[in-house]
């Protein structure tokens, strides 16, 4: 059953001028996607698991400093460096959504994809992490709980994309712009993250992505990221 509504090229725009670095997106992402808490010691060692992180860089000399926040997650590259290196096809390109997906049950844990991701967007389950009660009541039934030894990363909340599409199909209408919102965009109090269908030139995300403030991360690598960043306009707090 070929569904035309399934061929959306999903994309995201992040306005770094609006980002306040509040980390709401990081928290929302962890709750939505069953990302485990690795604990103080592990996180301190650099093994904290996040599918999205807020990179904070300082500009200027003290005391005249300005922070710059760049929320960074998997860029869902069109030419993804992680895909060809996996020996078992655990990291694959989804034809319907045009995003990169990780097949947790297929992953053997060579971590080659993690090395080859220029955005270092992938996180690895070094141990089996428990969700202590009552935290396990928060677990999202739509998302796999990963075991140790597998790689994982941002999926653009693919479960929400599917839910939105199913709802629209049940009601016999196309998916409306802004109907599907990933957890990070939903949680962002500054509306810095906008998500939508890039193949629809009238969608909000397409319009914003045409802004002259647009840039992409590491464009010289030719990875064709699906995430566009905005920078250089008005400055909102921070």
């Amino acid at each position, binding site marked *: 059953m070929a569904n035309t509504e399934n061929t959306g090229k999903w994309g995201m725009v992040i306005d770094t001028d609006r980002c306040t670095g509040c980390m709401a997106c990081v928290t929302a992402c962890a709750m939505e996607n069953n990302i485990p808490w690795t604990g103080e010691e*592990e996180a301190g*060692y*650099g*093994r904290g698991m996040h599918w999205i*992180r807020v*990179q*904070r*860089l300082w500009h200027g000399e003290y005391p005249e400093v300005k922070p710059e926040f760049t929320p*960074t997650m998997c860029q869902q590259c069109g030419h993804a*460096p992680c895909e*060809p*290196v*996996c*020996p*078992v*096809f655990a990291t694959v390109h989804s034809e319907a959504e045009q995003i990169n997906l990780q097949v947790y049950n*297929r*992953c*053997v*844990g*060579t*971590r*080659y994809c*993690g*090395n*080859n991701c*220029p*955005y*270092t967007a*992938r*996180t*690895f*389950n*070094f*141990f*089996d992490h428990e969700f202590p009660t009552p935290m396990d009541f928060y677990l999202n039934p739509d998302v796999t709980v990963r075991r*140790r*030894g*597998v*790689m994982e990363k941002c999926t653009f909340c693919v479960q929400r994309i599917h839910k939105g599409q199913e709802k629209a199909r049940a009601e016999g209408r196309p998916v409306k712009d802004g109907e599907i919102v990933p957890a990070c965009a939903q949680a962002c109090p500054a509306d810095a993250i906008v998500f939508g269908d890039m193949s629809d030139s009238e969608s909000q995300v397409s319009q914003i992505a045409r802004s002259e403030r647009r840039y992409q991360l*590491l464009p010289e*690598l030719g990875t064709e990221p699906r995430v566009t960043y905005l920078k250089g306009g008005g400055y909102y707090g921070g």
Partner: protein
Amino acid sequence: MAADAQSLTDMQIARYEKEEDPRQHLMFDPRPREEMNRMVLEAMQTTTPRYWITVGILGLLVALLLFGAWGNMILNGIGLAGVRPPIYWGIFIVTFVFWIGISHAGTFVSAILRVFKAEFRRPFTRAAELMTTFGLAAGALYPLIHLGRVWVFYWMMPYPNARWLWPNFRSALVWDFLAITTYLLSSTIYLYLPLIPDLAMARDRTEGWRHYFYMVLSLGWRGTEAEWLRLRKAIGIFAFAIIPVMFSVHTIVSWDFAATQVAGWSSTIFGPYFIVGAILSGVSAVITILFVLRSTMKNMKYFIRPEHFNALGKLVLVFSMSWAYFFFNEYLLHWYGGYKVVRDLLMHHATGPAAWIWYTMLICNVAIPWLTLWNKKIRSNPTAMFVITLLINVGMFAERYTIIPLTLGYQRFPFNWGQYTPRLTEISIVLGTFCLFIFLYMVVSRLIPLVPVWEVQEGQHAHTLRKVGKSEVPSVTELD
């Protein structure tokens, strides 16, 4: 009495060297066939209590350090190793590349020197080939050890399954898997072929379980003309065929890195650079092991002489220079290319907090061999060569450490720059494979003739001292 004969040999060789007598060379110092057979068998069958204690301790260490720590890691998670994002590969992969490098020694020394008819190779081809096999055995464990889920490792192999799923042939890891399996198989056959006549020799001169053991392994070898003809043909084919396999293996190992987009890895020069490094570390390891064999096994001083250290020392010097050339090339082109990420990375290697590893690499791989190996006296001194070659392998380990975790730690986002410290589990497993290598080598050194007797005898037949007037002139007959 045997001990007397041993020290007599030493003194004699020392005297020959002083007098520049051609008999200082093994090829010009023949012994009767039967005596030589007896010497090799004696070396193989003599076991001292010290030998058994060492083997016992090594076996225990392998069980504990390697399999114990690995088992514990499988039970608890790969997190017991120190790797962390973005440094996903650490000392496991470093040691993997190290062992695959060591394994180049056997083929290089044996096949290339055989093809080029370098006569000095004769007494130690087998010692080198054994290093290939055991180096691969130790190295091939690492792709399994470092997996997050080792219990499904077979998903990386092409095998028929209900879902028609193949491994991803675009992934360098699959090439790697195929290359290493090919090399392990072909190098084992290449080790076995020249072994057959020696096994038959041992079969005819032993009793009890050894007799049966060699009877099975020697495949009924009788030494007829037809058998020799076929054996030579097979060895000839394998010697030529295994050389491209050897070159391909380390090239493909280098593609694990070069085929990525990681800054500092994505380099077209990595293939030859890795091969030269592998041969440098491999030939050095041969020298290290020859010294150990010479000083621990009976009658080895007759077979392994200063001339062999001298000849291999020259090879090491040449490969140290080639390695330095590639190293320089790598820096020059990246400097010229001007890509900021790589330039910053290379600066970090030389000036960052782990710069001591970089300097260790340069001192051990370049400074030490260049300053010492030009000198024939040093090259002919087994103890000095032991120390030098050991240091070269320390340097090569440092090279791989610089290339793998230190490069991964300084990629395009300064946000998560950093280093990683190997943890106890990792260090234990690394030491465990070193113990495994020595353990296997020690056990097999008492099971098969470590010196290819027939090759030495063949060489000695071809080398004669002819009297021309009053002086003796060395003369060599061309074989085949």
